[in-house]
């Protein structure tokens, strides 16, 4: 492989893979997408990410980078001449990192749980937590965007990528549960931001089609439940 070739172990359904793709698109880096089978996991995945066995995996020449947010920061730093993804101010950077971690550690697990929870009371509680999280993120958006289109200002930045990657799944879950999660009433700014984000040229071609994702989700819930049971 040429020392500057870029490959991405990916899957069209994965929001984490989408983060890496958007970052590469922002930097106009050409890359090869290697679709990962996931069930079961390919030899290439197990070999390149033995610790977590998860996608995305970025292969840049002979370098292997795992974990979506680590990958995004790597892309930002290696292709430094392109538009910046992380804010340049240290405090703004800390805030972007904080909320990206919040999204991954506190908010998204609730979204994922919706795919496997069966009991009504638990579902209701989870839906409430998701909405509360989005209200918090609406406040964050107001502070970070300072009146501009994105968390990153005029252009898509780290926090836009960290949250925006989940939009397709969020819309699918709204269909499944028949509940509006990201709505114009409770979170008007985020609602608009979601439309702007999804239609950006660096995002739109790689955002999964919602009808296709909805169809896929029907079998996916079962697989997730079986996977979770096995882990316990």
């Amino acid at each position, binding site marked *: 492989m040429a020392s500057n070739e870029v490959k991405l172990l990916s899957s069209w359904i994965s929001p984490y893979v989408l983060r890496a793709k958007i970052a590469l698109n922002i930097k106009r880096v050409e890359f090869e997408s290697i679709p990962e089978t996931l069930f079961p996991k390919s030899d290439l995945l197990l070999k390149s990410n033995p*610790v977590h066995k998860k996608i995305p995996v970025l292969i*840049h020449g002979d*370098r292997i*980078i*795992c*974990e979506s947010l*680590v*990958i995004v*920061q*790597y892309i930002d*730093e*290696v292709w430094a001449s392109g538009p910046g993804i992380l804010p340049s101010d*240290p*405090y703004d*950077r*800390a805030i972007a*990192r*904080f909320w990206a*971690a*919040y999204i991954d550690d*506190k908010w998204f697990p609730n979204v994922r749980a919706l795919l496997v929870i069966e009991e009504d009371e638990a579902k209701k509680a989870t839906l409430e937590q998701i909405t509360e999280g989005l209200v*918090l993120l609406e406040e964050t958006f107001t502070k970070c965007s300072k009146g501009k289109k994105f968390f990153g200002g005029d252009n898509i930045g780290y926090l836009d990528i960290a949250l925006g990657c989940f939009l397709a799944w969020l819309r699918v879950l709204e269909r499944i549960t028949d509940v509006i999660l990201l709505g114009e009433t409770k979170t008007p700014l985020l609602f608009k931001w979601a439309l702007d984000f999804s239609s950006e040229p660096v995002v739109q071609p790689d955002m999964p089609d919602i009808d296709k994702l909805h169809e896929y989700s029907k079998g996916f819930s079962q697989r997730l439940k079986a996977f979770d049971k096995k882990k316990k």
Partner: protein
Amino acid sequence: MATSEVKVLGTWSCPYVNRAQLALKLKSVDYEFIEDIPLKKSEILLKYNPVHKKIPVLVHGEKPVCESLIIVQYIDDAWPTGPSFFPSDAYERALSRFWADYIDTKWYPLVKVVRQSEDKEERRTLIEKLSEGLVLLEEVYIKCSKGKPYFGGEDIGYLDIILGSTLRWLQVTEIVLEIQLLDQNKTPQLAKWARSFCSGDATKDILPETTKLLELHWKIQDFIKAGYKL
């Protein structure tokens, strides 16, 4: 900058707090340490960290920064004089971030669970996982240090701070369980690094004494047995 412009809200026994203290010391930044009240969410904590309500919190000129990994990176960015905690190469930086995340999400949480577990089978499985993790971290240390004393090379770096801050509680766990986790035979280089790290000038006044932590462990165990939720 005046001392009161930088504050750390935390407690002496918390490894995540020790990270912030270490990072500030390495950058020669003076700060005011505000000892948090254990078991209570103080007003000041709720003010500066309403989302997680957890220590540490770094307050820099009234702007709070939360989450220890983010705090250490912030300290590196905000005080750029002196050696950076991160390697200059982007790939090596990515590896530092990857392994810090591994330590915090996969490895270190097991240290507390195994120490508090009363189930023999569970303990056995956790000890195995912890040992495997340390073997992995030995390999990481060898790659990153390239023959120098620290993960960061000549100077203490990000991974040294992140892993090093966990060493005292690791020692307490070894004492409580009567086993050797950081084993001289299995992971000789890491064991050597741990000794140097704990006795270094920058760290020895910040890392808590093992005997005091051990006392705290027994107090916490009593609390748990009495039915308090921590």
